[in-house]
């Protein structure tokens, strides 16, 4: 009932008693506002709806704002360029050598594909480069494209090497390849050197030594590119490792065995370094700015958000809208909402977003890169509805986990020497990576960041309970609202018809109503739901709506029977007004009071039914969350996952209570006997 018409809020509490021009609705609204509990409940419901509407911005695995250096895309593009460049050259060389018919066709197709595709890859690569380098790179790129078109092999190979050396070096992998390839040649070269010495052939030895000098140059060049963006100490340590090898190779008098050992040591150091991204290299790439959470909203989400903001504004500042007609208000609410929704869809076509784990990894990277200026701002609850973090399953609520950690810390401190024997809390296990020495309490504290602590814990699949509850509020609240709207409509129409026309129509409709009344509601709904192969939230709404209208029908019928005998109806008839006009303009507005009350209680009932259905497993289909289905996830392990049992139920309880209180308030306000 957050949408209760603000138009009726024309009088304030404590205003002078009923003056003559006050409408029945305004009186009821004034009475309602006097009831503090009901008013508070209305605010609670409004806030809950706000949470539901803004849920994707409150709880989401996608960041609200993101500025980061996208190293992974750069690496991918570099790898693509190097690979395609190599294969283009290979294809061309093979063709020049001459091969069989079928192979020729294949190679030609390959060559054509690479010729077409490479400029595109290069353009992408250019996008990653800092602005100052782009002009130079663009020249190289054009040269490369024209050469690739003409297939000037030698030049093309040189140009490709230059691009790789100068512009791909920020990629750890490509730089590694640049040094690893010549380094691998060192082994065979030393063996050749051995052989040449044994044979004592000066000419051969001379040739081999010349080869060694060239190889040493290649290694030195590759290594320079590899360490180019690395910090000075690392550069120095690589220099120390490489110097004996390079001097040995250049001078030619070195012992081959020692050279091999040096080469091996350098190789190991490179292997260790390549797994670490080039520190600082990321900053040399321009950062990417994005708003993933906003970007992946749906048009309906946006429309509802605008609607909600406008509605709240109207409610809070109701004085400002005093003179507005109902139509104008509706237009002011619906127009901008629709425009926003349509506009959003037009500007941002739907895309497939990367998974929530991608953003988590990115945030992790950004956090580790202390020197960097990357920013990742997650929503308040940084978890998606279905983001299951396997290591985090069975995590208790953060507060409780903190208590456990504190107890552990003090126990470890007290144990002193025997700290190993202190039993470790689940949190310690959660952060323990494989092949890692057991974590100390301090390490666990450090890792216990916002991205890994769950306010209300996680369920058995490692999904954040709070995030699921927030996203689930959309299902639970909308089911309550929509299904009640459906059954109010059915109930009012049937009740009005049978109450106004009476006679046979009344008998038939009343008999039918009695038949429907006889079926217990929940079992009936379960039976019907179970018959659908693919349950969905819309079926739930429809079925609750189609089975629950009986009470409203009886209420409206009784009101119509009562009002039908009153003078104003007779007056309307004597004026010759048509039946529909009497029905809808004269009778219906006067019969709506009890219907509103039933509606408020009905929403509470519908929310209960939906939760019960989901709890029993007949509700929303599994990955989707609703309050009942979150509770369902704790079935059979209530004690293990006590937080999954307590919180969803509490939320349902609060919501149902709020609706019931609003219903009570409405009833009291509409009942003239209770008015003093």
């Amino acid at each position, binding site marked *: 009932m957050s949408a209760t018409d603000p138009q009726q809020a024309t009088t304030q509490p404590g205003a002078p008693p009923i003056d003559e021009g006050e409408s029945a609705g305004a009186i009821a609204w004034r009475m309602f506002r006097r009831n503090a509990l009901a008013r508070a409940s209305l605010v609670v419901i409004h806030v809950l709806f706000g949470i539901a509407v803004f849920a994707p911005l409150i709880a989401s695995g996608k960041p609200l704002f993101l500025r980061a250096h996208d190293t992974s895309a750069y690496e991918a593009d570099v790898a693509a360029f190097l690979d395609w460049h190599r294969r283009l050259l290979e294809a061309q060389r093979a063709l020049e050598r001459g091969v069989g018919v079928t192979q020729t066709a294949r190679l030609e197709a390959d060559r054509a594909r690479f010729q077409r595709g490479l400029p595109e890859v290069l353009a992408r690569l250019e996008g990653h480069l800092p602005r100052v380098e782009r002009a130079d790179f663009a020249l190289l790129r054009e040269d490369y494209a024209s050469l690739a078109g003409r297939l000037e092999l030698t030049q093309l190979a040189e140009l490709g090497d230059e691009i790789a050396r100068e512009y791909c070096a920020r990629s750890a992998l490509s730089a590694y390849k640049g040094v690893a390839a010549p380094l691998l040649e060192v082994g065979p070269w030393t063996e050749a050197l051995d052989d040449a010495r044994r044979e004592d052939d000066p000419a051969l030895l001379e040739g081999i030594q010349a080869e060694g000098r060239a190889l040493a140059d290649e290694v030195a060049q590759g290594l320079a590119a590899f360490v180019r963006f690395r910090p000075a100490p690392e550069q120095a340590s690589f220099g120390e490792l490489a110097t004996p090898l390079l001097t040995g190779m250049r001078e030619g008098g070195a012992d081959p065995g020692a050279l091999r050992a040096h080469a091996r040591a350098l190789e190991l150091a490179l292997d260790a370094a390549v797994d670490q991204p080039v520190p600082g290299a990321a900053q040399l790439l321009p950062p990417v700015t994005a708003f993933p959470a906003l970007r992946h909203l749906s048009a309906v989400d946006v429309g509802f958000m605008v609607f909600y903001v406008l509605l709240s504004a109207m409610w809070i500042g109701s004085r400002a809208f005093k003179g507005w007609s109902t139509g104008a208000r509706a237009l002011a609410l619906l127009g901008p909402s629709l425009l926003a929704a349509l506009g959003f869809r037009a500007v941002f076509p739907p895309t497939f977003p990367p998974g929530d784990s991608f953003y988590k990894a990115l945030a992790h990277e950004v956090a580790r890169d202390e020197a960097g200026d990357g920013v990742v701002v997650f929503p308040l609850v940084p978890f998606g509805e279905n983001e299951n973090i396997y290591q985090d399953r069975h995590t208790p609520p953060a507060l409780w986990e903190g208590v456990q950690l504190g107890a552990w810390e003090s126990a470890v401190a007290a144990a002193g020497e025997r700290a190993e024997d202190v039993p470790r809390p689940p949190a310690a296990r959660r952060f323990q990576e494989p092949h890692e020495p057991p974590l100390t309490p301090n390490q666990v504290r450090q890792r216990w960041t916002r991205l890994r602590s769950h306010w209300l814990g996680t369920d058995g699949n490692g999904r954040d309970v709070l995030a699921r509850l927030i996203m689930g509020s959309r299902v639970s609240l909308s089911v309550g609202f929509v299904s009640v709207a459906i059954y109010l409509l059915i109930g009012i129409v049937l009740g009005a018809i049978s109450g106004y026309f009476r006679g046979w129509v009344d008998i038939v409709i009343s008999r039918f109503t009695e038949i429907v009344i*006889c079926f*217990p509601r929940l079992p009936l709904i379960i039976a019907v739901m179970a018959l659908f192969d693919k349950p969905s939230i819309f079926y739930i709404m429809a079925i609750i709506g189609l089975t629950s209208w009986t009470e409203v029908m009886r209420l409206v019928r009784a009101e119509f029977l009562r009002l039908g005998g009153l003078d104003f109806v007779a007056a309307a008839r004597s004026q010759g007004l048509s039946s529909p006009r009497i029905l809808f303009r004269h009778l219906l507005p006067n019969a709506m009071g009890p219907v509103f009350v039933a509606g408020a209680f009905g929403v509470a009932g519908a929310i209960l039914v939906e939760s*019960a259905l989901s709890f*029993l497993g007949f509700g929303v289909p599994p990955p989707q969350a609703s309050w009942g289905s979150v509770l369902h996830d704790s079935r059979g392990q*209530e004690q293990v996952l006590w937080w999954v049992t307590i919180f969803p139920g509490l939320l349902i309880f609060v919501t149902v209570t709020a609706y019931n209180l609003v219903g009570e308030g409405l009833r009291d306000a509409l009942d003239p006997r209770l008015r003093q």
Partner: protein
Amino acid sequence: MWQYLLKRLLLMALTLFGISVLCFLIVTMAPGDPAAMKAQALASGGQSNLDEQTLRKNQELYYLDRPTFVNFEPPTRTSTVRATLEELDDEENEARRKDALARLKGTIGTSALELLIPELGPRVADAEAREAKLREHLAALRSDGAAQARAALGEDYGRYEPQLPPGSDDAAWAEAWARREEPLQAAIEAPARRLLEVLAGIVAPRGPKLPEGVGLAEARDAWETWWSEHRAEYAPEHVQQVVKAWLQKGGVPETEEAAAADPELAALVQVGQLAAPALMEAMHDASSEAAERQAAFGLAAVAHKPWDLTVDAKERQAFAQEWETQRAARIRGWREAAEKQAKRAAEAAGKTYDPSQVSYPSEDAILAGFASQEDFVSDRVAETLARHRYRWDDWWYRAEEYYVDFDGGRQFTRGFAQTQFGRWFSRLIVFDLGESYKQKRPVSEIIWDAFKKTLQLNVIAIFLAYLFAIPLGVYSSVKRGTLGDQVSTLTLFLLYSVPSFWAGAMLILLFTGPPFLSIFPAHHLSDLNAETFTAWGWFTDRLWHLVLPVAALTYGQLAYISRQMRTGMLEVLGQDYIRTAKAKGLPQSVVIGKHALRNALIPILTLMGGILPMLFAGSVIIETIFTIDGLGKVFFDSILSRDYPLIMAILMISAFLTLLGILVSDIAYAVVDPRIEFR
């Protein structure tokens, strides 16, 4: 008042009919092919790949081959025989053909003779005509009209058309067709031959003796002569005589040899299925069990069904065996339970378990309440007889159409009876709810077992709810506006909003094990070994198990009733007669307890009618949470396994109970409150 009651009851019958239609609609409107789904549900126990025959059998079993509400052409003997003959001629589907053959020979039998013999002539004539035409065409293939003849042959016998390379000459075609002469002739004769096979099957071992490979015309002549000679034996008068002779015989043959030598039985079997209607009638009208048995035995012989209403010595022995097994199992179970208990006791006391120290209960104690062998066997015999009777009725509902040509009036009623709804409803009105697909037990039995448990829970819950709600309501209305009233009203209001499934889960969380209290059991209504407990032990164990589910069922009703009580009481307290009573100087206790309470109780007591269905709805949740095999859990399980008879029955029963509740509360209201007028 009686008029009012009568009117209400009549309306109730109408509503009940509506309820059954709606209930039926809900289940039949299930998306997907209901026949396949029901068959799947049936088969999910064993085989899951359904062939057409199984599907068809299931369809027949559940009347799914019939229209839903109105059957415009209810089948009779003639139409059934015709339809089956058509199926017999289905060249495409061999399984269907075989099925039709078996049905004609085994099920419809002699009843079809009258209709089948005249069929023979036309069929043979048709075969002859076609054969002549075939020969003509084959001859023409070698002459000038070859192309024409080939086209005609291809049109008539497309299935047998030879595949020759294009450009083959006429001689090659003639050769190829000639090679197919034998199968072509077989195909031409097939309808007539099949009919002959059916006829021979029906009257076997009688009928004309025909040599192997006899010509069609000869066979027809032989059969027609045979029929003219034996026609009288299948005439209604003769059938009646034979049936009468059998029924008046008094006593059925006990052994198979005696049955083989029995002349009346032999005559009856010879008459065959033609005797079925008369025997069925005799069985229904039988004045004594012996007469019924006589008719059933005869019917079993002619209809080839095993339900002869006799339980022979072998079956009795099997029952006795079953009793022995159950008895042994019971003794073993009790002894094992005693051992387990001793083991636990030893563990608790810190001693080692000594098998020789176990004190076993005496055999008398174990077998207390266990039926004696005679009782057990006679119970089983009675059960078997009842099952036979049920099977006969069930069978006849459909089989009647094989043996009887109905007149207009019967056809009209059968238009409604021979439908899915008609079959279901006709069972429903005699309280036959069918058999569960999954458990293979009568639905009524399952429901009754479950209902006892649900009733236990709910009676206690309702009782407790009233016990606490009425004083609470009275208290808060009398002390209206005080702190006590406000606290209790708010508490009850909040309690009313607590979802029952959450309450159940929270009770389990808080009271059934670590890390919180571990006082009560979380599941079932009894301990697994409850059978071996003493009466007192069993009772306390049951109470212990009941605490949590009853609490979860009660609190909502408690809140609801006490709120109603408070409102009702407040209304009464505002009445003039209360003021008068107070003014008279009556003590507070009399004013409240006598004048106010009695009047305020009336609407509260009638609430009970409406509470019944609410409790059933609650049971679905609570029983599922606490794993209690009550009605709610059975309903839940039946939905999961798509056990349609069970779903329909439970929906029907709960709706019926609701209707009854409304009626009873209306009448009770009118009876208790003299201010209410009957309309």
